[in-house]
């Protein structure tokens, strides 16, 4: 009664998730590169590439539905199917955030006033890429320890995000004018990078569930930095 074709299907689904992960890592990498260089060709390639990400996500959803409908998965198989679906949605969202960053890359004015911000954004995106790579690795290796450590790697990103907001609200102008549009672009770019890492932290929660079977919603609370209000003088 061993179920070879079902387990082949699960393996394939697992591979598709890892493929989706690599597409999304590239999208984040290229979109942030475009943000720092202003390379519109690069930015456009990220925007166009999102179609592949969406298509693959849909395919994963379809495969997952078909396996659930036809194979009555239970136990570890059921958790894997459930988690593949959720992880694919997290990854797809990260792809969308990369597109948002690419769109800002095409419009952002890179004046000298932008330098300290771009510096912080560089550090943020390097850290976010690290979180993303580790999150995918945690899924690939079913590594609960790594999955649970993602929150800590995410923390500096939240801090840098708050710092950017704080600077934007209290600018130390060196005689250079900055526009509201420009400031909005910087704020949004930092927000998008911060959200990418948050999606990965949630993904890590799914990986923990996959392995332990314990439904634990604590990672839901990690999404937004708590004292964001401070930046707005609350």
């Amino acid at each position, binding site marked *: *009664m061993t179920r070879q074709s079902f387990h082949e299907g699960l393996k394939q689904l697992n591979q598709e998730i890892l493929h989706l992960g690599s597409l999304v890592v590239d999208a984040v990498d290229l979109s942030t590169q475009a943000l720092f260089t202003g390379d519109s060709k690069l930015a456009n390639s990220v925007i166009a590439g999102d179609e592949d990400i969406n298509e693959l996500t849909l395919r994963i959803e379809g495969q997952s539905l078909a396996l659930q409908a036809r194979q009555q*998965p*239970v*136990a570890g198989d059921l958790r894997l199917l459930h988690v593949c679906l959720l992880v694919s949605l997290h990854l797809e969202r990260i792809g969308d955030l990369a597109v948002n960053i690419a769109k800002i890359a095409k419009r952002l004015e890179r004046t000298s006033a932008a330098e300290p911000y771009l510096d912080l954004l560089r550090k943020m995106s390097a850290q976010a890429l690290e979180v993303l790579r580790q999150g995918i690795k945690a899924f690939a290796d079913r590594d609960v320890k790594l999955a649970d450590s993602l929150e800590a790697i995410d923390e500096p990103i939240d801090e840098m995000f708050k710092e950017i907001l704080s600077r934007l609200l209290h600018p130390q102008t060196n005689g250079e004018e900055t526009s509201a549009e420009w400031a909005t672009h910087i704020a949004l770019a930092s927000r998008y990078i911060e959200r990418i890492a948050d999606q990965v932290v949630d993904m890590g929660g799914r990986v923990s569930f996959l392995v332990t*079977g314990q439904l634990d919603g604590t990672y839901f609370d990690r999404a937004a930095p708590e004292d964001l209000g401070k930046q707005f003088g609350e």
Partner: protein
Amino acid sequence: MAGHVTTSSLSASFGDIQAIDDVTVEIPANKVTAIIGPSGCGKSTFLRCLNRMHELVPGAKISGEVVWDGKNIYGPGMDATEVRRGIGMVFQKPNPFPLMSVEENVSAGIRLTGGRMSKAMVAEIVEHSLRLAALWDEVKNKLHKPGGGLSGGQQQRLCIARALAVQPDIILMDEPCSALDPASTQKIEDTIDKLKQNFTIVIVTHNMQQAARVSDSTGFMLAREMGDPGRMIEYGPTNKIFTMPDRKETENYITGRFG
């Protein structure tokens, strides 16, 4: 609440062959408990130990205890017939008395074990039992037709009604749906769900999805090697067994990695 059973260190054998070894479980009243496991794991033997049917096989031996609402059913002074009245059994193949009418089938048990009863009282018990077994509407106009003339699914519900008529606490079901078509299976499963309000149900099934659908608790039995006795590998809430079993053997069996 009546219909609570615990087994402790229950072992059973046929001659030199040990069928089950050291099964200790608690079966709660008014719940459905499913026993699953591959062929030859001893699940039917376990079931038959719960109402002293195992001992009907020549050479059968048993050790350990089966305690039904505080009484060891194998204890001195316990009457096997009384045990089997309180703990009824429904078998894999529907086995109504084919030539007896529907009504006679249902009332067979009370006519054998009960004292004298008025016709009206018997009729009342027959109707009540057929309703509980979700068969009344289909047979109320053919109560005097032979039970053998019903469809397979109806015959099985007739057997359930016959088991219910003697007012047991517990109903044991040994693969009750394996000879039935999907629609009849669905009806039996719905019936089981309703019956647990009044009875404790223990069901042995090859069909893991059926165990997942109908039961509150699930026990997984396994004979590790050819010739080994069956053991209760894991026993727990059905939700847990089918989402996060504790034992690797359970996981491997229910996910179809062996068996």
